[in-house]
């Protein structure tokens, strides 16, 4: 029983990180119909920046905030300098550009910071809470991870649902041409979407870094799981991304705990296949519009 509780709590904590990675992908997919395969590279770079600051003696929270802000700027730059030029081009172009950026970033990071993974400190203690004499596999740092991801998801939801800026962003995502005809500055909205997505990605990066270490290729699996979670949620739905992340985190935690960690990646693939077979549009896909 303790084992089950441990695996559940652990699943929620890792699931929150997958949820953040999934959110980063979903925000961009919603607004541009691009799966940002470069997201793993982008959050790797911002986590490296935080790591470099920490090595230089900066306080943890300074490094944390700098990572998030650099993610914001990085996302805006990628949109403005690369993706903006692909509007109207075949979808494959964006896929290839995103992959190209990923390879470029990973190679550049290796040249600057080296290929040996470095450790990264957690924000809070990783010593599990003790309940009735037993120590749980859930620590203050896990609480922080879950709260940070839920808070950012909530803030994004408020932005999208409750503000006129969010209304403009949603209009841009659903119907860019109509949005322009209504005076929405579509370019600015797309840039903001990329910036926010990359910010959430950076958050996932610093949160996961203590367990995967920081290296050019250390974040690839997070993106694969994030992508799986996003597809489970329907790729279009921020709520779906969060739920998908948590469900995937739990499922993989049980598989890893009861069957062995060698099966975890395979299990993610099987889950993805099952979701695509049973509900190809995802668990939280928006219903088809009524055609007139």
């Amino acid at each position: 029983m303790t084992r089950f509780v441990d695996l559940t709590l652990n699943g929620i904590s890792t699931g929150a990180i997958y949820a953040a990675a999934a959110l980063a992908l979903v925000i961009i997919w919603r607004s541009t119909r691009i799966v940002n395969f470069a997201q793993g590279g982008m959050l790797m770079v911002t986590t490296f920046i935080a790591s470099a600051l920490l090595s230089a003696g900066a306080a943890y929270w300074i490094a944390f905030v700098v990572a998030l802000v650099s993610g914001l700027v990085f996302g805006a730059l990628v949109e403005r300098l690369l993706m903006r030029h692909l509007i109207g081009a075949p979808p494959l172009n964006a896929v290839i550009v995103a992959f190209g950026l990923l390879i470029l970033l990973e190679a550049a990071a290796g040249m600057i910071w080296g290929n040996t993974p470095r450790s990264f400190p957690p924000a809070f203690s990783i010593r599990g809470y003790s309940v009735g004499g037993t120590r749980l596999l859930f620590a203050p740092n896990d609480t922080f991870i879950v709260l940070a991801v839920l808070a950012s998801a909530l803030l994004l939801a408020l932005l999208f649902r409750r503000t006129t800026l969010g209304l403009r962003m949603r209009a841009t995502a659903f119907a860019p041409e109509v949005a322009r005809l209504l005076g929405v500055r579509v370019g600015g909205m797309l840039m903001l979407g990329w910036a926010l997505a990359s910010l959430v990605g950076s958050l996932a990066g610093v949160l996961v870094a203590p367990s995967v270490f920081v290296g050019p290729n250390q974040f690839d699996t997070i993106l694969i799981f994030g992508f799986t979670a996003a597809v489970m949620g329907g790729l279009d739905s921020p709520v779906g991304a969060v739920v998908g992340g948590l469900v995937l985190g739990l499922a993989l935690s049980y598989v890893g705990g009861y069957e062995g960690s060698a099966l975890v990646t395979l299990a993610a693939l099987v889950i993805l296949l099952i979701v695509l077979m049973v509900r190809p549009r995802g668990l939280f896909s928006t219903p088809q519009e009524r055609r007139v």
Partner: protein
Amino acid sequence: MSDALLQTEGLIAEYGPVRAVDGVDLTVHGGRVTAVLGANGAGKTTLLRAISGLVRARAGSVRLDGRSLAGMAVERIVRLGLSHVPEGRGVITELTTEENLLLGGLWRRRDAMPVEEIYELFPPLRERRRQPAGSLSGGERQMLSIGRALVGRPRVLLLDEPSLGLAPLVSSQIMRLVRRLATERRLAVLLVEQNARSALAVADRGIVLNLGRIVAEGDAAELIADEDLRQAYLGF
């Protein structure tokens, strides 16, 4: 013609490799409705898109209240008071009725028309304010897209096939409304229609396009009376 709100001269625009608009001159005054008629592929939609900036004109000029729109981005042209209601109604189906309406006036900030006024103009929309626009009927969607354009208080309104796919009764309601809006709000309206009869019934003037060129123009009454023109281009 100093009080012309919308004026094009020698406007040329392409749709893919096709020269869809081939030297169009037209003038619309405030309070007037000009119908743009012609068969499918005559260049009507491209003409509107070239005016609102969605398609970059190859040559010629578009002026709004005397000011050239050459090379301007769509969202800037909107801010000068031109509103284009695209074909297929262009309501954003994933947003609610009210969100669609609000969107039309965001750029005007506090000067936008209150959505309450739109609900008075189109009472059926009020009941559906919280529903996704995708659940509206064809006629309601048309009301919504026109209403949404009005929220930005435009001076020039471009309407692309507002009666497409609507029942005749609903379509004639929409047409009468367009007429009323033009007269009451001094809007210059460019009304693209395939249904020439119902468009000319409410328009002041009409132009007939064929292969991107104006083949006939005149007062609405003149065009209706021209038997040859009706048979050749208007199909009624």
